[in-house]
Protein backbone atom coordinates (compact mmCIF):
# COMPACT_ATOMS: atom_id res chain seq x y z
CA UNK A 1 0.00 0.00 0.00
CA UNK A 2 1.35 3.41 -0.92
CA UNK A 3 2.24 5.69 1.96
CA UNK A 4 0.06 8.78 2.13
CA UNK A 5 1.95 11.79 0.97
CA UNK A 6 2.40 14.57 3.48
CA UNK A 7 1.12 17.98 2.61
CA UNK A 8 3.98 20.01 1.15
CA UNK A 9 2.87 23.19 2.89
CA UNK A 10 2.72 21.38 6.21
CA UNK A 11 6.16 19.93 5.61
CA UNK A 12 7.59 23.40 5.12
CA UNK A 13 5.49 24.87 7.93
CA UNK A 14 3.89 27.58 5.77
CA UNK A 15 0.33 28.53 4.88
CA UNK A 16 -1.09 27.65 1.50
CA UNK A 17 -0.95 31.24 0.33
CA UNK A 18 2.65 31.73 1.47
CA UNK A 19 4.88 33.92 -0.68
CA UNK A 20 7.88 32.52 -2.54
CA UNK A 21 10.14 34.30 -0.08
CA UNK A 22 8.39 32.72 2.89
CA UNK A 23 8.67 29.29 1.29
CA UNK A 24 12.36 29.77 0.61
CA UNK A 25 12.97 31.10 4.08
CA UNK A 26 11.25 28.15 5.68
CA UNK A 27 13.05 25.70 3.42
CA UNK A 28 16.42 27.18 4.31
CA UNK A 29 15.66 26.97 8.03
CA UNK A 30 14.62 23.33 7.74
CA UNK A 31 17.55 22.52 5.48
CA UNK A 32 19.94 23.96 8.05
CA UNK A 33 18.40 21.63 10.59
CA UNK A 34 18.18 18.43 8.57
CA UNK A 35 20.77 18.72 5.79
CA UNK A 36 22.62 15.39 5.50
CA UNK A 37 25.97 17.12 5.12
CA UNK A 38 25.37 18.73 8.50
CA UNK A 39 24.05 15.53 10.08
CA UNK A 40 26.30 12.78 8.76
CA UNK A 41 25.05 9.31 9.59
CA UNK A 42 21.70 10.57 10.95
CA UNK A 43 19.07 8.60 9.04
CA UNK A 44 16.19 10.46 10.66
CA UNK A 45 17.55 13.83 9.54
CA UNK A 46 18.19 12.41 6.08
CA UNK A 47 14.58 11.29 5.78
CA UNK A 48 13.30 14.65 6.98
CA UNK A 49 15.49 16.50 4.51
CA UNK A 50 14.32 14.27 1.71
CA UNK A 51 10.72 15.26 2.37
CA UNK A 52 11.51 18.93 2.85
CA UNK A 53 13.51 18.91 -0.38
CA UNK A 54 10.68 17.31 -2.30
CA UNK A 55 8.20 19.84 -0.94
CA UNK A 56 10.46 22.75 -1.80
CA UNK A 57 11.17 21.47 -5.29
CA UNK A 58 7.46 21.53 -6.00
CA UNK A 59 6.42 24.69 -4.18
CA UNK A 60 9.33 26.75 -5.49
CA UNK A 61 8.29 26.09 -9.07
CA UNK A 62 5.30 28.26 -9.96
CA UNK A 63 3.89 25.83 -12.50
CA UNK A 64 4.30 22.76 -10.29
CA UNK A 65 2.91 24.60 -7.30
CA UNK A 66 -0.18 25.60 -9.22
CA UNK A 67 -0.78 22.01 -10.28
CA UNK A 68 -0.16 20.77 -6.76
CA UNK A 69 -2.58 23.30 -5.33
CA UNK A 70 -5.25 22.13 -7.74
CA UNK A 71 -4.70 18.38 -7.93
CA UNK A 72 -2.81 17.53 -4.75
CA UNK A 73 -1.09 14.16 -4.80
CA UNK A 74 -2.04 13.64 -8.43
CA UNK A 75 -0.36 16.71 -9.82
CA UNK A 76 2.50 14.77 -11.40
CA UNK A 77 0.15 12.55 -13.33
CA UNK A 78 -1.69 15.60 -14.59
CA UNK A 79 1.58 17.26 -15.54
CA UNK A 80 2.64 14.12 -17.37
CA UNK A 81 -0.44 14.46 -19.52
CA UNK A 82 -2.59 11.80 -17.93
CA UNK A 83 -5.38 14.29 -17.46
CA UNK A 84 -6.97 15.53 -14.28
CA UNK A 85 -8.30 13.09 -11.67
CA UNK A 86 -11.95 12.06 -11.62
CA UNK A 87 -14.56 14.05 -9.74
CA UNK A 88 -14.39 13.37 -6.05
CA UNK A 89 -10.67 12.56 -6.01
CA UNK A 90 -9.07 13.95 -2.86
CA UNK A 91 -6.50 16.70 -3.00
CA UNK A 92 -3.64 17.31 -0.57
CA UNK A 93 -5.69 18.87 2.18
CA UNK A 94 -8.86 16.91 1.77
CA UNK A 95 -10.39 19.16 -0.86
CA UNK A 96 -12.07 17.15 -3.59
CA UNK A 97 -11.29 17.65 -7.22
CA UNK A 98 -13.99 18.40 -9.72
CA UNK A 99 -11.81 17.56 -12.70
CA UNK A 100 -11.40 14.44 -14.88
CA UNK A 101 -9.59 11.06 -14.66
CA UNK A 102 -6.43 10.09 -12.78
CA UNK A 103 -3.85 7.70 -14.15
CA UNK A 104 -1.49 6.93 -11.29
CA UNK A 105 -0.29 9.35 -8.70
CA UNK A 106 2.87 10.21 -6.94
CA UNK A 107 4.01 9.24 -3.53
CA UNK A 108 7.32 8.71 -1.81
CA UNK A 109 7.21 5.04 -2.74
CA UNK A 110 8.03 6.21 -6.25
CA UNK A 111 11.53 6.74 -4.92
CA UNK A 112 13.77 3.95 -3.79
CA UNK A 113 15.98 5.49 -1.19
CA UNK A 114 18.27 3.47 1.01
CA UNK A 115 17.46 0.18 -0.62
CA UNK A 116 20.98 -1.03 -1.19
CA UNK A 117 21.87 -4.38 0.30
CA UNK A 118 25.07 -6.09 1.25
CA UNK A 119 25.76 -9.75 1.53
CA UNK A 120 27.49 -9.41 4.87
CA UNK A 121 26.55 -7.80 8.13
CA UNK A 122 26.08 -4.11 8.45
CA UNK A 123 24.42 -1.50 6.36
CA UNK A 124 25.15 0.13 3.08
CA UNK A 125 23.02 3.19 2.71
CA UNK A 126 22.93 5.42 -0.28
CA UNK A 127 22.26 9.05 0.40
CA UNK A 128 23.41 10.84 -2.70
CA UNK A 129 20.11 10.11 -4.44
CA UNK A 130 18.27 12.61 -2.31
CA UNK A 131 20.34 15.48 -3.60
CA UNK A 132 18.85 17.08 -6.63
CA UNK A 133 21.06 16.76 -9.64
CA UNK A 134 24.13 16.27 -7.51
CA UNK A 135 27.31 16.77 -9.46
CA UNK A 136 25.44 18.10 -12.45
CA UNK A 137 25.97 21.77 -11.97
CA UNK A 138 26.47 24.45 -14.55
CA UNK A 139 29.50 23.94 -16.69
CA UNK A 140 29.17 20.16 -16.83
CA UNK A 141 30.67 19.42 -20.17
CA UNK A 142 29.83 15.78 -20.70
CA UNK A 143 27.15 13.19 -20.12
CA UNK A 144 29.33 11.39 -17.63
CA UNK A 145 27.32 9.35 -15.18
CA UNK A 146 26.49 10.71 -11.79
CA UNK A 147 28.88 10.14 -8.92
CA UNK A 148 27.20 8.37 -6.05
CA UNK A 149 28.07 8.59 -2.38
CA UNK A 150 27.15 5.89 0.08
CA UNK A 151 27.97 4.78 3.58
CA UNK A 152 29.35 1.34 4.28
CA UNK A 153 29.22 0.13 7.84
CA UNK A 154 31.94 -2.28 8.90
CA UNK A 155 32.82 -4.14 12.05
CA UNK A 156 36.15 -3.38 13.67
CA UNK A 157 37.35 -6.85 12.68
CA UNK A 158 36.51 -6.19 9.02
CA UNK A 159 38.36 -2.89 9.09
CA UNK A 160 41.34 -4.60 10.70
CA UNK A 161 41.56 -7.72 8.60
CA UNK A 162 39.91 -6.59 5.39
CA UNK A 163 37.62 -8.87 3.48
CA UNK A 164 35.21 -9.07 0.63
CA UNK A 165 31.75 -7.55 0.43
CA UNK A 166 29.12 -7.88 -2.23
CA UNK A 167 27.08 -4.71 -2.60
CA UNK A 168 23.81 -4.72 -4.47
CA UNK A 169 22.96 -1.54 -6.31
CA UNK A 170 19.44 -0.20 -6.74
CA UNK A 171 19.64 -1.23 -10.37
CA UNK A 172 20.12 -4.83 -9.27
CA UNK A 173 23.75 -4.81 -10.31
CA UNK A 174 26.12 -6.28 -7.75
CA UNK A 175 29.66 -5.12 -7.06
CA UNK A 176 32.31 -7.19 -5.34
CA UNK A 177 34.42 -4.98 -3.17
CA UNK A 178 37.68 -6.01 -1.59
CA UNK A 179 37.93 -4.22 1.71
CA UNK A 180 41.61 -3.60 2.36
CA UNK A 181 43.01 -4.17 5.82
CA UNK A 182 43.44 -0.93 7.69
CA UNK A 183 40.47 1.22 6.68
CA UNK A 184 39.25 3.58 9.39
CA UNK A 185 36.06 5.21 10.51
CA UNK A 186 35.43 8.29 8.38
CA UNK A 187 37.73 7.29 5.52
CA UNK A 188 36.42 7.41 1.97
CA UNK A 189 37.24 5.13 -0.90
CA UNK A 190 36.41 5.53 -4.55
CA UNK A 191 35.17 2.77 -6.81
CA UNK A 192 35.85 4.14 -10.26
CA UNK A 193 33.06 3.66 -12.79
CA UNK A 194 30.63 2.15 -10.26
CA UNK A 195 28.37 5.19 -9.97
CA UNK A 196 25.55 6.19 -12.28
CA UNK A 197 25.65 5.12 -15.92
CA UNK A 198 26.76 7.70 -18.44
CA UNK A 199 24.70 8.64 -21.46
CA UNK A 200 25.68 9.00 -25.09
CA UNK A 201 28.59 6.62 -24.62
CA UNK A 202 30.14 8.64 -21.82
CA UNK A 203 31.86 7.01 -18.90
CA UNK A 204 30.02 6.01 -15.74
CA UNK A 205 30.35 8.05 -12.58
CA UNK A 206 32.22 6.88 -9.52
CA UNK A 207 30.96 5.37 -6.30
CA UNK A 208 32.35 6.95 -3.14
CA UNK A 209 32.05 4.77 -0.07
CA UNK A 210 32.29 6.52 3.28
CA UNK A 211 33.38 4.01 5.89
CA UNK A 212 31.63 3.88 9.24
CA UNK A 213 32.81 1.52 11.96
CA UNK A 214 30.30 -0.04 14.29
CA UNK A 215 31.15 0.46 17.97
CA UNK A 216 32.94 -2.59 19.36
CA UNK A 217 31.72 -4.19 22.58
CA UNK A 218 35.25 -4.78 23.88
CA UNK A 219 37.72 -2.44 22.21
CA UNK A 220 37.92 1.31 22.14
CA UNK A 221 39.60 2.69 19.05
CA UNK A 222 42.08 5.54 19.19
CA UNK A 223 43.60 6.03 15.76
CA UNK A 224 45.64 2.91 15.07
CA UNK A 225 45.62 1.91 18.73
CA UNK A 226 43.13 -0.13 20.69
CA UNK A 227 42.29 0.10 24.36
CA UNK A 228 40.66 -2.57 26.45
CA UNK A 229 39.68 -2.68 30.09
CA UNK A 230 41.01 -5.71 31.96
CA UNK A 231 39.56 -6.56 35.40
CA UNK A 232 42.05 -8.04 37.86
CA UNK A 233 41.74 -9.28 41.43
CA UNK A 234 43.34 -7.32 44.31
CA UNK A 235 45.83 -10.11 44.94
CA UNK A 236 46.79 -10.15 41.28
CA UNK A 237 47.48 -6.44 41.54
CA UNK A 238 49.55 -6.86 44.72
CA UNK A 239 51.44 -9.99 43.82
CA UNK A 240 51.57 -9.65 40.05
CA UNK A 241 50.15 -12.29 37.75
CA UNK A 242 50.02 -13.67 34.27
CA UNK A 243 46.49 -13.23 32.91
CA UNK A 244 44.82 -13.50 29.54
CA UNK A 245 43.76 -10.33 27.73
CA UNK A 246 41.72 -9.99 24.55
CA UNK A 247 43.31 -8.65 21.39
CA UNK A 248 41.74 -8.12 18.00
CA UNK A 249 43.42 -11.36 16.86
CA UNK A 250 42.58 -13.46 19.92
CA UNK A 251 43.65 -13.80 23.52
CA UNK A 252 47.23 -13.33 24.64
CA UNK A 253 48.99 -13.71 27.97
CA UNK A 254 49.81 -10.46 29.73
CA UNK A 255 52.07 -10.00 32.73
CA UNK A 256 50.52 -7.82 35.40
CA UNK A 257 53.42 -6.37 37.38
CA UNK A 258 53.44 -6.67 41.17
CA UNK A 259 52.00 -3.54 42.76
CA UNK A 260 49.84 -2.70 39.73
CA UNK A 261 47.39 0.15 40.12
CA UNK A 262 43.86 0.59 38.85
CA UNK A 263 43.78 2.55 35.56
CA UNK A 264 47.42 1.58 34.93
CA UNK A 265 47.95 0.94 31.22
CA UNK A 266 50.06 -1.87 29.83
CA UNK A 267 51.16 -1.54 26.24
CA UNK A 268 51.02 -4.53 23.93
CA UNK A 269 53.23 -3.36 21.13
CA UNK A 270 52.00 -4.18 17.64
CA UNK A 271 48.68 -5.63 18.84
CA UNK A 272 46.57 -2.72 17.59
CA UNK A 273 44.90 -2.27 14.23
CA UNK A 274 46.52 -2.99 10.90
CA UNK A 275 47.57 0.21 9.18
CA UNK A 276 46.58 0.87 5.58
CA UNK A 277 50.19 1.04 4.42
CA UNK A 278 51.60 -1.70 6.60
CA UNK A 279 52.53 -1.95 10.24
CA UNK A 280 50.22 -2.03 13.22
CA UNK A 281 49.20 0.15 16.10
CA UNK A 282 49.46 -0.88 19.74
CA UNK A 283 46.95 -2.17 22.22
CA UNK A 284 46.66 -0.62 25.64
CA UNK A 285 45.35 -2.81 28.44
CA UNK A 286 43.82 -0.65 31.15
CA UNK A 287 43.82 -2.47 34.49
CA UNK A 288 40.79 -2.26 36.71
CA UNK A 289 41.05 -3.75 40.17
CA UNK A 290 37.77 -5.33 41.15
CA UNK A 291 36.84 -6.83 44.49
CA UNK A 292 34.74 -9.90 45.18
CA UNK A 293 31.28 -9.05 46.41
CA UNK A 294 30.24 -12.53 47.48
CA UNK A 295 32.97 -13.94 49.71
CA UNK A 296 33.10 -17.32 51.39
CA UNK A 297 33.71 -17.73 55.11
CA UNK A 298 37.29 -18.73 54.42
CA UNK A 299 37.90 -15.71 52.20
CA UNK A 300 36.40 -13.46 54.81
CA UNK A 301 38.64 -14.97 57.47
CA UNK A 302 41.70 -14.35 55.28
CA UNK A 303 40.68 -10.74 54.59
CA UNK A 304 40.19 -10.21 58.34
CA UNK A 305 43.64 -11.65 58.92
CA UNK A 306 45.08 -9.36 56.23
CA UNK A 307 43.40 -6.39 57.85
CA UNK A 308 44.98 -7.33 61.16
CA UNK A 309 48.52 -7.73 59.91
CA UNK A 310 48.64 -5.16 57.11
CA UNK A 311 50.42 -1.84 57.69
CA UNK A 312 49.00 -0.40 54.44
CA UNK A 313 47.51 3.06 54.86
CA UNK A 314 45.62 3.91 51.64
CA UNK A 315 44.63 7.41 52.80
CA UNK A 316 47.89 8.62 54.25
Amino acid sequence: MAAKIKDYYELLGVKRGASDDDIKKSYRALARKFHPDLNPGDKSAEEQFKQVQEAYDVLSNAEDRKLYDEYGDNWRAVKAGAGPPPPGWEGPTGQRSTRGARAGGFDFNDFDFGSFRTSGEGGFDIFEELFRGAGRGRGQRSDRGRDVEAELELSLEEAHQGGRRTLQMQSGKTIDVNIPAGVRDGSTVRLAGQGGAGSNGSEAGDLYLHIRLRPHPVFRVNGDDLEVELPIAPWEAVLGAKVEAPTIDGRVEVTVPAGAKSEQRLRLRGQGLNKRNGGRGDEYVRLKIVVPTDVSAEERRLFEELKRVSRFQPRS
Partner: protein
Amino acid sequence: MWPGDADLDEPVSCEVVAQTVGARRSLVVRLAHQGLIETVEGGTDEPLVPRRVVVQLRRMQRLRRDLGVNFAGAAVILDLVGRIEQLNRELAEIRRGRR
Protein backbone atom coordinates in the same frame (compact mmCIF):
# COMPACT_ATOMS: atom_id res chain seq x y z
CA MET B 1 44.59 -0.73 -2.04
CA TRP B 2 41.16 -1.10 -3.56
CA PRO B 3 41.70 -3.10 -6.72
CA GLY B 4 41.33 -1.06 -9.85
CA ASP B 5 40.82 2.18 -8.00
CA ALA B 6 42.85 5.29 -7.90
CA ASP B 7 43.90 6.21 -4.40
CA LEU B 8 42.12 9.27 -3.06
CA ASP B 9 45.55 10.70 -2.20
CA GLU B 10 46.41 10.72 -5.90
CA PRO B 11 47.24 14.27 -7.05
CA VAL B 12 45.04 15.37 -9.93
CA SER B 13 44.68 18.61 -11.82
CA CYS B 14 42.01 21.19 -11.09
CA GLU B 15 40.64 20.46 -14.56
CA VAL B 16 39.97 16.81 -13.63
CA VAL B 17 38.21 17.81 -10.42
CA ALA B 18 36.21 20.49 -12.23
CA GLN B 19 34.98 18.02 -14.84
CA THR B 20 34.06 15.47 -12.18
CA VAL B 21 31.94 17.84 -10.11
CA GLY B 22 30.58 19.89 -12.99
CA ALA B 23 32.31 23.13 -12.06
CA ARG B 24 34.53 25.54 -13.92
CA ARG B 25 38.26 24.94 -13.70
CA SER B 26 38.78 28.55 -12.68
CA LEU B 27 36.55 28.03 -9.65
CA VAL B 28 38.57 25.02 -8.47
CA VAL B 29 41.82 26.93 -8.99
CA ARG B 30 40.46 29.89 -7.06
CA LEU B 31 39.31 27.71 -4.15
CA ALA B 32 42.73 26.04 -4.08
CA HIS B 33 44.53 29.41 -4.08
CA GLN B 34 42.26 30.63 -1.28
CA GLY B 35 43.08 27.54 0.80
CA LEU B 36 39.46 26.40 0.86
CA ILE B 37 40.35 23.01 -0.62
CA GLU B 38 43.41 20.90 0.03
CA THR B 39 46.34 21.11 -2.38
CA VAL B 40 49.48 19.03 -2.87
CA GLU B 41 52.94 20.02 -4.02
CA GLY B 42 53.17 19.43 -7.73
CA GLY B 43 55.84 21.73 -9.03
CA THR B 44 53.47 23.24 -11.57
CA ASP B 45 52.04 26.72 -11.89
CA GLU B 46 48.53 25.49 -11.28
CA PRO B 47 47.92 23.75 -7.97
CA LEU B 48 47.29 20.02 -7.88
CA VAL B 49 44.70 18.64 -5.48
CA PRO B 50 44.24 15.18 -3.96
CA ARG B 51 41.39 13.30 -5.58
CA ARG B 52 39.45 13.29 -2.30
CA VAL B 53 38.75 16.97 -2.88
CA VAL B 54 35.97 15.81 -5.19
CA VAL B 55 33.94 14.69 -2.18
CA GLN B 56 34.66 17.90 -0.29
CA LEU B 57 33.86 20.11 -3.23
CA ARG B 58 30.58 18.36 -3.93
CA ARG B 59 29.53 18.87 -0.32
CA MET B 60 30.44 22.53 -0.59
CA GLN B 61 28.32 22.79 -3.74
CA ARG B 62 25.35 21.22 -1.97
CA LEU B 63 25.67 23.52 1.03
CA ARG B 64 25.88 26.50 -1.30
CA ARG B 65 22.85 25.41 -3.26
CA ASP B 66 20.67 24.24 -0.38
CA LEU B 67 21.64 26.67 2.38
CA GLY B 68 22.82 29.66 0.42
CA VAL B 69 26.26 29.83 2.06
CA ASN B 70 29.30 30.86 0.06
CA PHE B 71 32.26 28.56 -0.49
CA ALA B 72 34.27 30.05 2.36
CA GLY B 73 31.33 29.45 4.70
CA ALA B 74 30.85 25.94 3.37
CA ALA B 75 34.52 25.13 4.01
CA VAL B 76 34.19 26.31 7.61
CA ILE B 77 30.96 24.33 8.06
CA LEU B 78 32.52 21.12 6.77
CA ASP B 79 35.55 21.61 8.98
CA LEU B 80 33.34 22.09 12.03
CA VAL B 81 31.08 19.16 11.12
CA GLY B 82 34.20 16.99 10.84
CA ARG B 83 35.36 18.11 14.26
CA ILE B 84 31.91 17.49 15.76
CA GLU B 85 31.87 14.02 14.25
CA GLN B 86 35.25 13.26 15.78
CA LEU B 87 34.15 14.59 19.17
CA ASN B 88 30.94 12.58 19.00
CA ARG B 89 32.93 9.45 18.29
CA GLU B 90 35.22 10.12 21.23
CA LEU B 91 32.26 10.92 23.48
CA ALA B 92 30.52 7.70 22.49
CA GLU B 93 33.70 5.75 23.25
CA ILE B 94 34.03 7.43 26.64
CA ARG B 95 30.41 6.75 27.49
CA ARG B 96 30.77 3.13 26.50
CA GLY B 97 33.89 2.86 28.66
CA ARG B 98 31.98 4.10 31.71
CA ARG B 99 29.32 1.44 31.47
